[in-house]
């Protein structure tokens, strides 16, 4: 009886070995080997025949280790060609934040619908203007109000020359009151203006140089 069982087991392992070989010759990707039995000589235990059957992470290609602090890189400025513009910045600014934000969202949605690729959509710093009122009699100035200018930018990738007049006209006709619209080419200076200056670092650099 035992001999019969042993023969059966041996034939089974032999079949598995043959199957494995066939698989390795067929596929270029990492062959699916049985997770636990690496070689033929390992004994097959009755318990846990499917141990580790769901493992898949060892099959993925190895990712490069992530750098600890990734400085934000500037996205490449698209070069303009004969039929498309370079990277354009559509700048929406105004005193009323809801209007400005809603209009910039409207522009973004419009671009999505018209098939214009949007590179980036960000907000610039809010500038606060203090309005001082001069009193009629005397020289005392008193604070009247604070006006905050909000700025939102939608960056377009390559605007087609044929699409440009249509797009601009739609924007102009839908421009709400109190909102200023401005379309400019994107430059490195614009990108650098978004970052805070570091006066102490620059002072140290000046000392070294």
């Amino acid at each position: 009886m035992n001999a019969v069982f042993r023969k059966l087991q041996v034939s089974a392992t032999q079949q598995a070995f043959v199957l494995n070989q066939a698989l390795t010759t067929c596929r270029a990707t990492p062959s699916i080997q049985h997770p636990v039995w690496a070689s033929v000589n390992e004994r097959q235990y009755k318990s846990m025949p499917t141990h580790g059957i769901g493992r898949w992470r060892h099959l993925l290609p190895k990712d490069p280790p992530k750098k600890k602090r990734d400085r934000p890189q500037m996205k490449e400025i698209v070069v303009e060609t004969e039929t498309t513009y370079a990277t354009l910045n559509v700048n929406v600014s105004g005193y009323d934040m809801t209007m400005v934000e809603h209009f910039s969202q409207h522009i973004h949605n419009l671009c999505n619908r018209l098939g214009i690729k949007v590179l980036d959509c960000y907000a610039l710093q809010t500038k606060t203007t203090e309005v001082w009122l001069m009193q009629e009699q005397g020289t005392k100035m008193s604070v009247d109000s604070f006006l905050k200018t909000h700025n939102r930018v939608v960056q377009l990738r390559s605007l087609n020359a044929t699409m440009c007049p249509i797009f601009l006209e739609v924007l102009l006709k839908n421009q709400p009151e109190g909102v200023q619209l401005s379309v400019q080419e994107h430059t490195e200076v614009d990108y650098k203006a978004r970052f805070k200056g570091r006066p102490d670092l620059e002072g140290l650099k000046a000392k070294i140089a």
Partner: protein
Amino acid sequence: MAAPCRRMAGRSLLQFVSSFSRTSVSNSGFRQFSSTSVCRGSNQAQHVEERASSPWTLMAAVCLQRLPVISAESNPIEQQFRDMMIQMELEKSMLSDHELRLLDDAERLRRMQAGEYDSDEEEDRRDQEIVLAQDLEDSWEQKLNNFQPAARVSDSEGDLGSLQRCLSDSLLLLVERPVGMEKLWMLPQTEWQRGETLRETAERALSSLPAASGFKATFLGNTPCGVYKYKLPQAARTESSVGTKVFFFKAVLSDAGAPPATESSQLWVTKSELQRYVKPAYLRKVERFLLGF
């Protein structure tokens, strides 16, 4: 095509810097436009290729529009929805600083009148007692009452030559030109000359208008937005001229300058009034690129 369409696109990408602003203080209701277009160098003259001359005469026309000055009126449904949203947002919102101050002052007044007020408790509040929040609010309300907004509907509604009509719609410039035997209404156009781009032709068409002493327009792009083909009647056709092709360029009015002196050959119309003046075939082509009603 003899016209340097391809070249036009190349010269284009005029790096243009334009900013459009809509402020309440504007000269006669126009938006302030500031646009500087940096020319890409005039390589046109050198690159003009000798092509076989085609039998079509080419013209460029300018579709000059005055954009709406005020926002359009809302439907009754839109009005109702807006009122409901305002009410809902008011009910859901938190109290602002000014409203908290109002409540505080009212509370203090009530306590002072009831006689429980102990002035020693609130030492740091003494400077704020001079101007109550309620007084501030009253002075603001007075300022608002002193402000007189301009009328939405101006007097010159019927005068089709005036720029102040239909402030909530966009107006289109039409001129009357003699074509063949008759005078037709059309968008201002001129013939293309060799060596210039079509957009320059359109700019020339605009500046050559008799009443365009002060028209300042910003062209929206370097590509035409529409085309109209006109074949001459059989009798007038020759070997070298089968008809004309007119390319339309979009422009937006930034300044009208001095109003023309009872110039009857110039009109500002809305899209719906266009069909009264313009021929049907022409209208079909022009309507395609005019946005609006």
